[in-house]
């Protein structure tokens, strides 16, 4: 099984402050890989580093065996990595349709209609809201839109940064269900960054734990879910 994405001892900094310490992870094809950790552990930094901003100061980011460490963000996106950023970041004053068009900006417009149909099967709500301004959607719908927008570029790898952020448990379940479905039906490779360890570990085939910018544990989702220290640190009191 080949790796879609491989981080090889990646370190990155915000000015003098080191946010990632020699992080190495592997994302195998057709799998859901999750990275869990507390607030400020460096999860989002890792996502951003994959996209070249901040650029990794040492180590390499490999995508299908190709070194993409120094590339600007827009070129990385054009290679087939799509991101649903933390906090959703939909374009609030643009309609759902325009948001989706923005996602399709880097690919052939001829695929647009077909992709749209796929998106609507996955998230029927977006079809109902098609002409509506994204800023007027509910949080869950905005998250669906953020994921859908990323999918419009027909990525080979989908990066999801905290899709559960600020959402009701029922909506989280829906979103995670959609991610699972995507992975199962289309074989899409997903790297999921989450604070919601319980849900993420259930979903993922492979998982990493990030603490203070360092990987402390890895294994299959089920393995980590069973570990007492994970339970103590991330799952106690969680639903």
């Amino acid at each position, binding site marked *: 099984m080949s790796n879609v994405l491989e981080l090889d001892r990646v370190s990155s900094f915000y000015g003098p402050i080191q946010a990632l310490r020699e992080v190495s992870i592997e994302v195998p094809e057709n799998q859901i890989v999750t990275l869990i950790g507390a607030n400020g552990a460096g999860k989002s930094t890792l996502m951003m580093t994959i996209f070249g901003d901040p650029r990794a100061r040492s180590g390499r980011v490999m995508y299908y065996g190709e070194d993409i460490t120094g590339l600007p*963000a827009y070129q990385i*996106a054009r290679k087939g990595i799509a991101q649903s*950023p933390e906090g959703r*970041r939909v*374009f609030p004053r643009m309609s759902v*349709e325009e948001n989706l068009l*923005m996602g399709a900006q880097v690919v052939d417009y001829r695929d647009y209609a077909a992709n749209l149909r796929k998106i609507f099967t996955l998230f029927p709500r977006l079809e109902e809201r098609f002409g509506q*301004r994204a800023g007027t959607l509910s949080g869950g719908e905005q998250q669906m839109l953020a994921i859908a927008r*990323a999918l419009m570029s027909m990525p080979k790898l989908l990066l999801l940064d905290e899709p559960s952020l600020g959402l009701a448990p029922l909506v989280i379940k829906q979103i995670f269900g959609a991610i699972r479905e995507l992975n199962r039906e289309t074989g899409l490779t997903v790297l999921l960054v989450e604070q919601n360890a319980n849900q993420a570990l259930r979903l993922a085939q492979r998982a990493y734990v990030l603490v203070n910018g360092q990987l402390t544990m890895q294994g299959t989702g089920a393995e980590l879910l069973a570990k007492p220290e994970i339970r103590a640190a991330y799952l106690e009191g969680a639903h």
Partner: protein
Amino acid sequence: MRPLARDLKDAAAVAFFAFLIFGPFIGLPLSNNQAGNLTLGTRPQALALAVGAVFLARLGLLAWARWHPAPLAPRFTIKLQGAGRFIAPVLLVFAVLMPLLPGLPNAYIDLGVLIMTYVMLGWGLNIVVGLAGLLDLGYVAFYAVGAYSFALISLNFGLGFWECLPIAGILAAFWGVCLGFPVLRLRGDYLAIVTLAFGEIIRLVITNWVSLTGGPNGLLGMPQPSLFGLRFSMAGGPGTFAGFFHITPAPWQRTAYLYYIILALALLTNWVTLRLRKQPLGRAWEALREDEIACRSLGINVRNTKLTAFAIGAFFGGFAGCFFAARQSFISPDSFTFMESATVLAIVVLGGAGSQLGVVLAACVMIGVPQMLQSLQIYRMLIFGLALVIIMIVRPRGFISTRRPTVTLGKRGGVIGADLVSQGRG
């Protein structure tokens, strides 16, 4: 009773500040006595009147806000939006026919030229500020580049207005890119400061490079635009417009011609903007305004997108500058002060950033109203300022703050104004 007490306290505080400001201005008048010496007098009644007026106005405003909590504006917006579809064509027809109205004084056509110039500048700046969301306080720089390009090229190489027009636009666009590069990483206030400085730099260079630009004395004697080689001259005779068509030469012919030039240039700006908004580039500008980080993660080349916004905005600014120089036949650095940038920016913001029709309405208000109020003399700017304040209170996001989706392939949702979104409703 409690809200009333709070209002009173608020109004008292505002009145206190009014006292601080008006105290010296109104309360302590300077006057010449018989001997020609300056004496400082006091005017307690006038001061009390001014402060009292401020107190009551503030109280009234608060009461008004209490009676009309918030709605009003959104409902009004939607109505305006619907009406926009009719207003725009009506305005266009009026704009085309205006100079031909019989008995219209030349001064009105001239005012039309002035307003149209600002409409064009507003539309040009709207690309940068309204669509791409890059706050540009130095737009006058491109206006100046366009004007001086035309002046220098026509004076030194003998080219006419129409030959110089594209050159002026291209040179301005070039400077737009030059400005764009260093400010790529800046946002918001910081971007505004640098663009402000850029506008000043261009003006200072023009002022001080005396050997090229004539410095503060300006440049004089640029050729007037001609109509397919026909000049507009009061003398008449062969080779002039009046001579060719065998009509009596009159000043309005030249003014009307200038009016149609600027109308055509402005409409070109509008057309390009509307076209681009439906293209991926225009959509990328708007997305950039909304969220730069999201844009980057979607594979948008943020650098190029910003630079094209600066370049295209500057291009039309250059056009307007070229026209301005041709119309005046005289330019000097005085025409390109920060005040111009501020006026154009005010037009864009007042119109509702991003709205093309809003720019037209705002330009009419900003340029037309002060001219109309000439008879009120010193109170002119006071009333004008008051009008602007009131407009921003009633319509805080500009005349037309709703934005219609530029694409509608499928089902349509309702129109939801920016007012509602910003308030978390809708």
